[in-house]
């Protein structure tokens, strides 16, 4: 399992592995939205929490695309399925590796993007907290989506379609947490819900994803 984690991290940081690109995409969204919406600080600061969360979500999604697909295409997945690692463990490890490579750095640079979007000063700690709590759920849900669509060429977009609705609760609680934080309102409810979504996903989804993989391998 550790070997798998190390391999995935190594693959990600090797040339062309895509490390940092999730980040870059997050940055893009934070840059493009003002370009589209216009430069007024008031509007931007109003929509900042929502847009940043949508950006984080899309960045996760894009890099998820090939979570299992590459292994499927080159035959590794067949071989891993016959290896002495439980498939559930494999999914969990791959989800973790994905989070380490996208969710974590994303959380780390989010304050800078908050700046670009004119987020209210009180919102910064909440933004970081919300992303740190919520992105693991994004990775796990995404892993499930990736497992469902693994056999399909151009599965990426289909996967987006399957995964995005599942991202809705995380998005709503996450964005709400940041909005309330920025406005200095009570934050306990969205905080608890966000934590619940993440814990639930991490507990249940590896099993569902492993099952989906088994079905796809037949």
């Amino acid at each position, binding site marked *: 399992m*550790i*070997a*798998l984690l190390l*391999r995935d991290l*190594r*693959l990600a940081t*090797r*040339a*062309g*592995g895509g490390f940092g690109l999730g980040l870059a995409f997050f940055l893009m969204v934070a840059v493009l939205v003002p370009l589209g919406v216009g430069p007024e600080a008031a509007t931007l600061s109003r929509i900042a929490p929502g847009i940043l969360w949508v950006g984080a979500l899309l960045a996760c999604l894009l890099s998820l695309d090939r979570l299992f697909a590459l*292994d499927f*295409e*080159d*035959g*590794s*997945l*067949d*071989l*891993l*399925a*016959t*290896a*002495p*690692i439980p498939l559930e463990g494999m999914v969990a490890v791959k989800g973790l590796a994905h989070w380490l490579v996208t969710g974590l750095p994303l959380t780390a640079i989010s304050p800078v993007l908050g700046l670009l979007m004119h987020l209210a000063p009180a919102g910064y700690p909440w933004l970081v907290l919300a992303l740190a709590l919520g992105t693991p759920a994004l990775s796990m849900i995404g892993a499930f989506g990736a497992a469902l669509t693994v056999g399909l060429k151009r599965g990426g977009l289909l996967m987006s379609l399957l995964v995005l609705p599942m991202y809705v609760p995380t998005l709503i609680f996450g964005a709400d947490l940041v909005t309330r934080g920025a406005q200095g309102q009570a934050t306990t409810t969205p905080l608890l819900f966000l934590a619940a979504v993440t814990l639930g996903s991490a507990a249940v989804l590896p099993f569902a994803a492993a099952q989906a993989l088994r079905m796809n*391998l*037949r």
Partner: protein
Amino acid sequence: MNLQVVDLAVARGGVAVLAAVNFRLDAGRALILRGPNGLGKTTLLRTVAGLQPPLAGEVRVPEDQMAYAAHADGLKSTLTVAENLGFWASVFGTGSAEAALAAMNLTGLRDRRAADLSAGQKRRLGLARLLVTGRRFWCLDEPTVSLDTASVALFAGVLRAHLAEGGAALIATHIDLGLPEAALLDLTPFRAPLSGPAGAFDEAFS
């Protein structure tokens, strides 16, 4: 310890391709599957390896003793030869990959990225993976594709050593492997009858 295939029928794309296949593979033996293109050898091997369920019949094989090597080698092109093999060695918990590298004559290439290997070298690496699985039963689908004669002989030697240590191998191939001691099974007679049940769904209807 042996592998038994009993009355096995296998299907691909919902169509039965082989039916009523029976054979037994004992430790220390190799069985070569033959048959024209499109007969169903790949499908049979995937079923035996447990990657797809049989249509009928069963495969009796000791738990966790099967290693499968297919047309695709499962190599990561950005990792080096040693990293690729080392990964599988630690997944299967068999420690070092050096012996396998040496056995398949890859020591000189150990730090080359897999993307920079020739077709035959890639295949050698794919086969070296079998050695680090530590598994007794090998399911091999056209293992010697793209190999030159020297490499085929090398592989035959590796296979012989595996058999001598009590392993067993089930091999589909069109090329002569230079393994006269292996048993041969021509699958042509097991072609599924056209009128036979085409799958669970079809069956449910009749």
